[in-house]
């Protein structure tokens, strides 16, 4: 049984359809990467999984159970956690408080604040600083740490490399291994194709609200990916 299964999801923003019959399966322990140009529907798909958007047609199964009409906080309880696009840390809270809010649902598991500080040592000295004063890279590390605090089985990452320096991106991707070891499955959405292809075990290429191409990175050629990415 797949950890997450999306069956023919159709998602709309009011009268604008953003996803057309999108189906995919994420297996436990995978790094599943969704790539594609701006507006291709990748982020919409993540928001549908996290519960911010509800599909008008289609189904979502988590661990075999339907979750499409479950509120986001219930999904966190089940073990789905999201690192939102643009980081969205709580600006008026301190770094440490941000982490504590991440643990709000109190799911049992390996992750604690100390674990996060071990994973991202740069956060340790910033513990008592307001999150609004952090740099982009620090905020991204915090956002990932905050998500981990709920001890997710599936962590959703929306454009984690956005606006970050290559060094920082590298460090974040390095952390993926630790995440996998702790039992997380990773569903990541990226524009930064190069980095994500080096770590992904499965790739789905989004184009205009549909999945244009799927497979393991090894099976797919660069030309295929470029074609699916740009739609030419």
């Amino acid at each position, binding site marked *: 049984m797949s950890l997450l299964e999306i069956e023919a999801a159709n998602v709309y923003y009011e009268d604008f359809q953003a996803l057309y019959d999108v189906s995919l399966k994420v297996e436990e322990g995978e790094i599943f990467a969704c790539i594609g140009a701006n507006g291709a529907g990748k982020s919409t798909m993540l928001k549908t999984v996290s519960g911010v958007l509800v599909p008008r047609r289609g189904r979502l199964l988590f661990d075999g159970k339907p979750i499409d009409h479950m509120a986001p906080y219930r999904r966190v309880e089940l073990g789905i956690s999201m690192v939102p696009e643009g980081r969205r840390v709580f600006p008026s809270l301190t770094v440490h408080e941000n982490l504590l809010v991440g643990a709000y649902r109190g799911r049992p598991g390996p992750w604690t604040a100390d674990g996060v500080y071990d994973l991202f040592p740069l956060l340790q000295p910033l513990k008592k600083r307001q999150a609004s004063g952090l740099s982009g890279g620090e905020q991204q590390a915090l956002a990932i740490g905050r998500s981990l605090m709920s001890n997710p089985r599936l962590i959703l990452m929306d454009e984690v490399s956005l606006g970050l320096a290559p060094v920082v*991106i590298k460090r974040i991707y390095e952390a993926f291994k630790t995440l996998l070891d702790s039992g997380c499955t990773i569903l990541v959405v990226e524009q930064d194709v190069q980095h994500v292809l080096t770590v992904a075990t499965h790739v789905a290429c989004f184009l205009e609200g549909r999945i244009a191409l799927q497979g393991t990175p090894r099976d797919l050629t660069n030309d295929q990916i470029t074609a699916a990415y740009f739609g030419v």
Partner: protein
Amino acid sequence: MTKALETQGLRKSFGGVLVIDDLSISVDQGEALGIVGPNGAGKTTWFNLITGAVHADGGKVLFQGKDITGLSRHERCRQGIGRTFQIPKPFSGMTVFENVLVGATHGRRMRERASYGHCVEILEMTGLHDKVNVLAGSLTLLDRKRLELARALATDPSVLLLDEIAGGLTEAEVQELIEEIRKLQATGITIVWIEHIVHALLALVNRITVIQFGRKLCEGDPREVMSSQEVQACYMGGTLA
């Protein structure tokens, strides 16, 4: 010659994150400048600072040589800066025609009757003439993008800021849009175009500026810039193609 548009040492941060960091870019009269850079680089924020949608923490915006940093949004529009929004913001309860009328009567300050001809011309040029009486809220994405363009044009801009106007369109639609923008440029309008769809940019612009981390990474001939290793690395995270 005076630059059509120039920003000098612009700075802006949101919360603690510096989004625009000492950004100086100038645009020549009549040129078509492409702006590229990864998501979150600060491109749209730069537009927002030029149009006054967001106030700068420091630096200056010069338009036709005049400092417009202290002007309000509608004044900047009336000076001749037109813009389209990345996510279209139509006046959804008004018809397409009325949307364009707002630009003509307020941005260009025409009397309503006198502006009708101007509006019809723009509606035809942007291919919206069949939908003039449709409520803007019920348009498709392509038509919303066209309306963004039409509404901006109705304000009679000398500089037109286009924010990912080709994003989300099909290839055929993109080609059509390029043709429309080319015609605009031929009439002497200066174009500044943020776009992710690189081949669309290459088909039109004379120069490309790359922005990363709110700073100017490099600028120059479109093809040279886009094929440089540095730009590819920042843009797609490496050399893909």
